[in-house]
């Protein structure tokens, strides 16, 4: 058993991948929790898909692909906001349109600009073999920065995500807070791209958070418990990826789903099975009471 856990660590790329996995578990849970409580889960997916054209253009121009990804990802969120405010369309339709259009543009640009060296398959599904020490530092920097900002602005973020109108009415600059959240989501996507892949990032963003949501009743606890779930999922996903030779993204996502399913069934307060047994328990007690009364 111990060998099973230790053996992969003899490879440098695996040590890097695991370091990133732990960081992503924390980062995605914190940022994703804001998405969940704002009912913006799909926004994470839109941004994740939309970084592709930015990657291609940045690669073509020879600049850091993260910068291209950041610009394209933020732009997609702004386009969604624009369509929503300037038409009668609802946000879900605007997101569906933007997501597919940016992804299509990205794939087209990769072909047209001949940036084929960008391995599309790895970008879409993640690849632990490609994790470099640079990626680890990158992810560490993003994680620390975002955690620090969340800590600093927590009370404002809580107010805004709970009651945006009330927050605006009390004078908080909600446009800036919204843009800050979008930037944080985009940075999280960039940090996760290499290991989870853009198609599947959404799972790590919302999965640990909603699992925690079934267990606790405050946002900061949701982030904390979510981080633990996220770390367990991403680390064990890495091991599955290593031993079964499957892309790391799908492996992590399937573990996330497994943990969510277990919680949905067994959560002490909201689990399907625990709830059932609680009702049948109370039914049993009522039965006993009636029986006693009759006697």
């Amino acid at each position, binding site marked *: 058993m111990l060998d099973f856990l230790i053996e992969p660590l003899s490879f440098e790329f695996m040590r890097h991948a695991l370091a990133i996995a732990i960081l992503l578990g924390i980062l995605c849970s914190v940022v994703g929790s804001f998405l969940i409580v704002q009912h913006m889960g799909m926004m994470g997916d839109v941004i994740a898909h939309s970084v592709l054209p930015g990657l291609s253009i940045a690669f073509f121009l020879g600049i850091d692909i993260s910068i291209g990804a950041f610009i394209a990802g933020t732009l997609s969120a702004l386009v969604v906001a624009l369509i929503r405010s300037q038409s009668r369309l609802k946000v879900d339709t605007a997101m569906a349109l933007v997501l597919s259009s940016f992804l299509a543009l990205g794939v087209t640009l990769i072909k047209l600009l001949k940036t084929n060296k960008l391995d599309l398959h790895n970008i879409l599904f993640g690849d632990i073999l490609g994790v470099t020490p640079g990626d680890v530092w990158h992810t560490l920097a993003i994680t620390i920065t975002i955690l620090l900002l969340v800590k600093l602005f927590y009370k404002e973020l809580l107010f805004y995500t*709970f009651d945006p109108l009330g927050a605006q*009415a009390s004078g908080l600059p909600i446009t800036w807070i919204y843009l800050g959240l979008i930037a944080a989501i985009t940075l999280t996507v960039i940090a996760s791209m290499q290991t989870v892949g853009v198609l599947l990032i959404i799972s790590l963003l919302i999965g640990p958070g909603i699992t925690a949501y079934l267990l606790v009743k405050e946002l900061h606890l*949701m982030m904390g418990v979510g981080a633990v779930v996220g770390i367990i999922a991403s680390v064990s996903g890495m091991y599955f990826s290593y031993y079964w030779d499957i892309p790391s993204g799908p492996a992590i996502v399937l573990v996330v789903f497994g943990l969510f399913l277990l919680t949905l069934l067994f959560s002490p307060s909201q689990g399907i099975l625990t709830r059932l047994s609680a009702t049948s328990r109370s039914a049993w007690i009522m039965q006993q009471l009636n029986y006693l009364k009759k006697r």
Partner: protein
Amino acid sequence: MLQVQNLAVSYQGVCAVNSISFSIEPGKLVGVIGPNGAGKSTMIKAMLGLIGSSSGVVKFYSRPLKQQLKQVAYVPQRSQIDWDYPITVWNVVMMSRTVHTGWFKEPSYQSKEIVKAALKRVGMWELQNRQIGELSGGQQQRVFLARALAQQAELLFFDEPFTAIDKKTEEIVFEIFFELKAQNKTLLVISHDLGENLSYYDRFLLMNKQMIADGSKSEVLTAVNLQKAYGHLTIQ
């Protein structure tokens, strides 16, 4: 003194609020009434700058209201709130102190005392650690009332505060409205069902897209005015 001049709002070419003007003295409880879709919420949102207005000036003590939002407490309609949000009663009321506390700071001891007093005033102190979804409709409304109290605002807006609440909560709400009035604060309360509590208000603004009548109960609630606003003679 709250002054609204020629406030107008339109959504994609459709007029929602048409050239509304009124002013309110401090220490008044004012009911904003009118049928569903009359633009009552829209008017208040436009006054606070929560949505854009196509024209109009809103001033509070001769200065634009939007520059002194710290003086404002706004309680949105219950439908605007996600009651499954993972947050406790205490933290909802603590939100009222966000702007007072300022960026990068933790709420002061004084802020915590203010929140505690507000929770006690509305009878929700014992339930401070409950998640808001675990409360009844009336208790939820009292939490928001406590939040408005703890904001220590001069100008208070309530959007349909009497929806889905019990008799006890209604009594507490009116008691607190009277206390706030006595402290010379200005209260604007939207309601489409004023029922038996009409006499509690000092003044009514009856509107349907535009202002139909503005004045005391006997001046506003006349057959002619109600006919104009509702198209029939009674308030539903």
